[in-house]
């Protein structure tokens, strides 16, 4: 569950990064989404940072892996910000899509819904839209093709440089 605290004006990013223990996972400051606890931030250029924060939450709700940190979901969706910078219609689709998501989610917006099931319920209402399909489709490569997440799933990736698995457990199954 990602909790968002909107930063007060004048709260510097450095301060945010220093305040690691406040319990906030994602913080919006200026044009960035910041994870103080994990010392990363994602600057947006075209999309509103709130939109990016919601996209990150949406990404996790579409492909939830509890052992995968937010950082990788943020990397997986940041291409949409770049695309939005080049394509006004695409930007409008994303901003409108998020606005619609918030509207369907009630007063607190999408990120205000406490349970994944509640958010998934809202996503189900929009899963046929081009907006949803653009986000979901982009994640298939954007999330799972990050080499950094592979070890979390136990996938070892490239093996040629290590001489393959002929001496590294290609037949090491023990429980059969």
């Amino acid at each position, binding site marked *: 569950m990602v909790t968002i605290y909107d930063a007060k004006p004048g709260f510097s990013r450095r301060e945010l990064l220093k305040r690691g223990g406040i319990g906030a996972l994602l913080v919006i400051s200026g044009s960035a989404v910041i994870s103080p606890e994990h010392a990363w931030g994602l600057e947006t250029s075209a999309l509103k940072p709130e939109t990016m924060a919601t996209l990150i939450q949406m990404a996790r709700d579409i*492909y*939830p892996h509890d052992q995968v940190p937010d950082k990788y979901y943020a990397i997986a969706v940041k291409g949409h910000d770049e695309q939005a910078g080049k394509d006004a219609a695409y930007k409008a689709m994303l901003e409108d899509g998020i606005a619609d998501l918030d509207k369907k989610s009630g007063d607190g917006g999408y990120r205000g819904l406490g349970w994944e099931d509640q958010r998934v319920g809202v996503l189900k209402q929009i899963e046929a839209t081009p907006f949803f399909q653009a986000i979901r489709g982009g994640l298939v490569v954007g999330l*799972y093709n990050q080499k950094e997440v592979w070890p979390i799933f136990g*996938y070892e990736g490239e*093996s040629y440089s290590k001489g*393959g698995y002929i001496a590294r457990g290609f*037949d090491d199954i023990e429980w059969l």
Partner: protein
Amino acid sequence: MAASFDLNNDGVVVIIGSGAGGGTLGNELAQKGVDVVILEAGARHEYEDFVNDEWGSFAQLAWTDKRTTSGDWRVAKDFPNLPAWIVKSVGGSTTHWAGASLRFQEHEFKTLSTYGKLEGANLLDWPITLAEMEPYYAKAEAKMGVTGTNDWPRLPGNNNFKVLKAGADKLGYKECHTGNMAINSVDRDDRNSCQQTGFCFQGCKWGAKWSTLYTEIPKGEATGHLEVRPNAMAIKINHDASGKVTGVVYADKDGKLQEQKARIVAVAGNSIESPRLLLNSASGKFPDGLANSSGQVGKNYMRHTTGSVYAIFDRPVHMYRGTTMAGIIRDEARHDPSRGFVGGYEFETLSLGLPFMAAFLDPGAWGRSFTTALDHYDHMAGLWIVGEDMPRAENRITLHADEKDAHGMPIADVHFDDHPNDTAMRNHAYKQATALYDAVGATRTFPTPPYPSTHNLGTNRMSEKAEDGVVNKHGQAHDIKNLFVSDGSQFTTGAAENPTLTIVSLAIRQADYIAAQMSAKTI
């Protein structure tokens, strides 16, 4: 040293495509002293260029030119512009194939006589028999280094195979082993043996898996009779007033149109591109496309009845380690209509890396039902179903009415509907595979839909009579005697087995025929 032939040299055999059919035919002819030009649409990447990276390799090797799809197959919905997962690179799909090299069964050359007429199926007996093919199968196995033949040992079984074998034993299957693989189990042919690297589909960086790229093609080039021209996309085959083909128009690496003159043309661009080229070569004399007096060009498109089953266990498997497809169960390959369908299917081990598993396990799915499967990726085992599908006239390749590629050539549309026999077979296979993994203690299984087609067959089929098909028993067009088809598109029916060994065997046989006909000056 590789040859270099003049565009106006009309004494050469021009082969379109450098994969299992074209690459083999080119070398076989060159070895006999016949001058050959192979036009290959893709670039030349040698095996040290391959990458152990699924999407990276896909970008390097796959045929990603746009195609369209229609029909009730799920691929048309999930991958509407990617009906097939095949290769555009020197070596063709032999860079990507898994290496499974199985002979067809005797009855699979005689499907109409064996299965009888089936509503909605365009079955036909092959004009050749297993007995006629056997000497060529033996030559192909020797050429390719197929394990389990010629005293070459089978490959050692990896983790995924061990799970398959344990399940096969529990279910009472008798014929389960690590397959007949065109992958060196010992160093031979100046190539390495398999190092169990696990990226067979991405091009074998060891050169252990047979590919025309580093076997047939350099051997042919060494004769001085073979030139492989990469980045040469064939657009049209020209003919003279008598109807004989005279040359091939292609777009070169700069997109400029060239014509290579030819004494003989052999089409080996795989079962989507080969009929596309014949259809696009329509002329005043041949208004429906070349070699198409039967109307069968592009029809009877087959893709094997496929599917996968993945299973999760409570303990680790690491299925992706080692040779991807070195594991087979052959018991269901028999023809036994009591199962509710004609023909049979093979079970073969299969693994995808995490990126492709995410893309292909259940395309379009999202949420926890999907992601919890991937959470246990390293506890997964998997197999592939490959069975005989029914040829249907409606399943076909056509030229798109409006859309054209970068060279102005109409793109291909691929239409496919499952025959009820295909569906019955797939469901039977899903059930058996699920039972197999359950018997080993699977906690969850996934009947996974077919991927974009890797086995594309039948669209220029071989027939005894000219009215039933496109080519004769030598792959020679019924209508045009100096035009040949040399890939899997000449298959009359698909059989249950992976097609490459049969494509290579047919190419060896065809080379003998072409050389004999050239000597006799009949073509």
